[in-house]
C-alpha cells in the first residue's frame, strides 16, 4: 500500500522531470528495503512509458522529455549499483547499436529513441551521426549487438539504410541481428522493402517494436513471419522510400542542418 504510493511518486517524478525528487525517492526505497528491481519496474519505468506515450501524442515536448530522461538517469544511478551488488541484477532487454546513417547529421530524433530504449532497459551504444556504411558494418561485427538501429532523416540518405543491410547480407551476417530503422522519410513499407525487421513511427513505438522483436528472437520466431529471408533476398523494388501519408516525424524530431 505504502509501496504503491511510493511507486506512483516515482513514476510522477519521471513524468514531471524532477531529477532531485527521483533521486531522493530512489534513496528512500533503498532505505525502506524495497528491492531496487521493483522500484525500477513498478515505479520509474512506468513513468517513462507514460512520458513516451505523451510525447507521441505531442502532449509532452522535447525539453520535457529531456528532463524526464534526466530524472530517470538520476534514479538509475542510485539503484543500479545496488542491483549489481545483490542477486537481482537488472536483466538487459538487449544490446542496441545505433547510428544516424552516412551523409545524414540529424541527431535529436535518434537520441530520443536511444534515451527511451535505455530507460526501458536496453543497453545502448550510440555511434553518433554521419556514420559511414563500412564503419557501421565493422562495428556491428565487433560489438555483436542484438539490435542494429539506423536513423535517416532525409529522402536522400534513407538509401544508406538499405546499403548497410545489403552489406550485412554480403558479409553473411544479416540473420545474426535484428535490424530496426526510423526517421521521417521511412515507413513500415520502406522497412519491408529494404528487408529491415522493424520500424518505429515514433520513440515509444520504437520501444514497443524493439521489445516485441527481442521476445520473438528469444522465442526463435523472429524469421517466421513478416520480414522473412525471402523478401530480403529479393531485389527491393525501389531505391528511395515512397512517401506515404502516415510518415510523421514524431520519431525523428526536427530537421537539423
Amino acid at each position, binding site marked *: 500500500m505504502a509501496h504503491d504510493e511510493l511507486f506512483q511518486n516515482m513514476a510522477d517524478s519521471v513524468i514531471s522531470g524532477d531529477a532531485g525528487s527521483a533521486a531522493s525517492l530512489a534513496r528512500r526505497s533503498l532505505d525502506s528495503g524495497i528491492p531496487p528491481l521493483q522500484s525500477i519496474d513498478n515505479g520509474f519505468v512506468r513513468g517513462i512509458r507514460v512520458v513516451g506515450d505523451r510525447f507521441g501524442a505531442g502532449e509532452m515536448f522535447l525539453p520535457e522529455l529531456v528532463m524526464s530522461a534526466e530524472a530517470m538517469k538520476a534514479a538509475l544511478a542510485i539503484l543500479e549499483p545496488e542491483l549489481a551488488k545483490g542477486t537481482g541484477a537488472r536483466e538487459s532487454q538487449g544490446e542496441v547499436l545505433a547510428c544516424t546513417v552516412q551523409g545524414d547529421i540529424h541527431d535529436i530524433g535518434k537520441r530520443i529513441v536511444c534515451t527511451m530504449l535505455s530507460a526501458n532497459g536496453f543497453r545502448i551504444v550510440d555511434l553518433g551521426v554521419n556514420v559511414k556504411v563500412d564503419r557501421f558494418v565493422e562495428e556491428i561485427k565487433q560489438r555483436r549487438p542484438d539490435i542494429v538501429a539506423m536513423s535517416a532523416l532525409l529522402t536522400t540518405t534513407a538509401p544508406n539504410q538499405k546499403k548497410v543491410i545489403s552489406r550485412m547480407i554480403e558479409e553473411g551476417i544479416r540473420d545474426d541481428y535484428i535490424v530496426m530503422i526510423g526517421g521521417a522519410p521511412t515507413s513500415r513499407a520502406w522497412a519491408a522493402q529494404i528487408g529491415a525487421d522493424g520500424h518505429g513511427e515514433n520513440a515509444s513505438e520504437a520501444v514497443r517494436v524493439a521489445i516485441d522483436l527481442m521476445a520473438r528472437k528469444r522465442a526463435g520466431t523472429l524469421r517466421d513471419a513478416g520480414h522473412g529471408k525471402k523478401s530480403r533476398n529479393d531485389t527491393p523494388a525501389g531505391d528511395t522510400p515512397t*512517401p506515404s501519408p502516415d510518415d510523421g516525424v514524431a520519431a525523428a524530431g526536427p530537421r537539423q542542418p
Partner: protein
Amino acid sequence: MSRPDRPDRPHPEPGLRSITFRPDECTTRVPAGTTVYEAAAWIGRAIDSTCGARATCGKCRVRLREGELLVTPADHEHLNSDEIAAGWRLSCTAEVQHGTIVEVPRLMTAPKTAMTGTGRPVLLDANVHKVHLRLDQPELDDQRSDLQRIRDHLRAAGFACNAGLDVLRLMPAALRRHQFDVTAVLCGEWLIDLEPGDTTGECFGVAVDLGTTTIVGTLLDLNDGSSRGATSALNAQVVHGSDVLSRISHTMCHPEGLSELQAMAAASINGIIDTLAQGAGVPRDRIYEMTVAGNATMIHLLLGIDPEPLSIAPFTPAITEPVFLPAADLSLTIHPRGRLYALPALGAYVGGDIVAGLLATSLPREPRLRLFVDVGTNGEIALGSDRRAVCTAAPAGPAFEGAEIACGMRAVTGAIEEVRITEESVVLRTIGERPPVGLCGSGLIDAVCQLLRRGVIDASGRMLTIEQARRTLPPSLAERVVEVDGVRAFVLAAGERDAKAVILTQKDVRQLQFAKGAIATGIQVLMKEMKVSADDLDEVLLGGAFGTYIHPAAARAIGLVPAVSLDRVRAVGNTAGEGAKIALLSTRERKAAEEMPRRVEYIELSGRTDFNDLFMAALAFPPPRC
C-alpha cells in the same frame, strides 16, 4: 578602432580598407585590392562608364584626394601626365590598398534609373548594348576584315567585342544584305547579332525568380528599365515532390531523372517567356538576356548538373560561382544567341535567391544593422551591415507550407490566412473569402498566437486538457477543445454541411515549434556571432511570399523573429525576383552580387556545439507581452 556612433558594434574586418567618395561623403569598406569602381558599385554610387569597367572607354576617371592609388598602364593610355600628376585615375583599374578618399566628377549626363519593387532606384547599366553601325563599305584600299570593321567601330563607342562561330557565320551576309547598316547586339562583350537598320529602340531582357514551387518572370525594357509585364507559373518539377530533397532524390533513383528535371525547369521558364513576349507584343528574338535567381538545387537542376552531393553531408555544391552562358544551351527560347546569367550562391543552402535578396535589400552595403529572414522549408537568414555580414540556413521543415499539419495546406483559395480569437468567438479570414478548408502558414502562426494569448496553449506549447478548458475558458471557447484519436485539438471551424472541420492539433503546435525553433536558433547563432542583441537591430526584414502575408505581431509573439518593436519589422516581398531584376538592369549591381560570397560569411549551424542547447531553448514560446 570602434566608431564613436556605435561603440558596441564589432570592429571591422582587419582586411578591409575604407574608401570615401566626395562630394557625397559616403564611405564603405572593401577588401584590399578592390577597384575604386567596384567599391562605388558596392554602395550604389554612380561613376560614368560605357565599357563596363573594361578599361577601354576611359570615362570612369576619379581624382585622388587622400591616400594612394598606384598609376596603371590604362591610366597612361587614357590620361595625360598632367592629369595623372593632378591625381586623376581610371577608377576601374585603381585598386584600393589603403584608406582612400576620391572625388567623383558629376555625371555629364543624368543617368537613367529604374525603380524596383524594394523601392531602391537602380542606375540603369544593362549588360546588353545595341550599337547602330553605319560602317564604311570595304574598298580596295580598305580591306579590313568584317569583324575588324565592326570592332573598330565598337571600340570608338567604348565597347570591346568577341564573336562566336555562330555569329561569324551569319556576319558577311548580314552586313552585305543591309549595305553595312546594321545594329550590333552585344551581350556583355559577346556580339550575338547584327540586325538590319537601327533597332536600338527594341532591347529587352527577362528576370526570373526560379523558385522550388513558383517561378516568377518579369520582362524588362533594357533601354529605360521599365517593366513590360510580369507573370508566374508553377515549377513543373513539383510533380516530383514539393521540396528540394525529393527533387534530388528523383535524380538519384531514375537514370533520366536529371535530364527530365532540367527539361521541366526549361519548359516552365519558356512558358513564362512566351506569356511575357505575347503579352507585351515583343518578339522573343528581341529578348537578349535573362537573369536567374534560384536556390542552389534549382540552379544545379536548370544547368543539368548532378545535385546529389548538395543533399548529403558535407553538402557540397558543384558550383556557387555565377554562370554566364548561351540560353540555348539550356533549351531556353529567348534570342537564339541570347545569354543567361545566374546569380552566385553563398553555400549549398544559401543560394542565388538569397544573394538576390541581399542585393535587393542592400543589407551588407548599408550602415544600418539589419536582419533578413526568408521563411520557407529552408529558412535563410542574414544579419549585418556594411561593416560585417553573416548568413546561415536553418532547416525549418515544411510546416510553414502546410505540410505535416493535420489541416495544413498551401496558401490557395479557402486557406485560413488570418485568425482572431475573442472571448466569445473565433473569427477567420480565408483566401478568396471562401469557406475554410485548411490552414496555410500565416493562418497557422496566427492561430497559435491567438491560442497563446487566450491561454489555450501555454508557453511550453502544451494545450489545455478538456477538463482544464472547461474550468478556465469561457464556454464558447471551451467547447472547441476536443480530443481526436487521443490527441488534443482546437476546433477552428466546425465544418457545417459539406465542409470538413478545420482543427489545430497539439501535434501541429509541436511542428510549428520545431519550425520556428530552427529559425529562431539560426537567428540567435548569427546574433551571437555578431555580438549583438535584439535591441541593436535597426530593422527586421521578412522576405519571400510568406514574409508578405505573415503578421509581424504574430511572428514576434511566437518567437519567430526577435523581440523588436513592430515598427522595425518590415515585409520586403519577393526579394529574389527583385534581385534578379536589379542584376538584369545593372552590371554594377551584378558585380556587387558577385562580391557577396566574399563579403558575407556563411555560418554552418550543424558544425556548432551550441546548436542543440540553443534549439531546445528556442522551442518554447516567448512570454506574452503586455
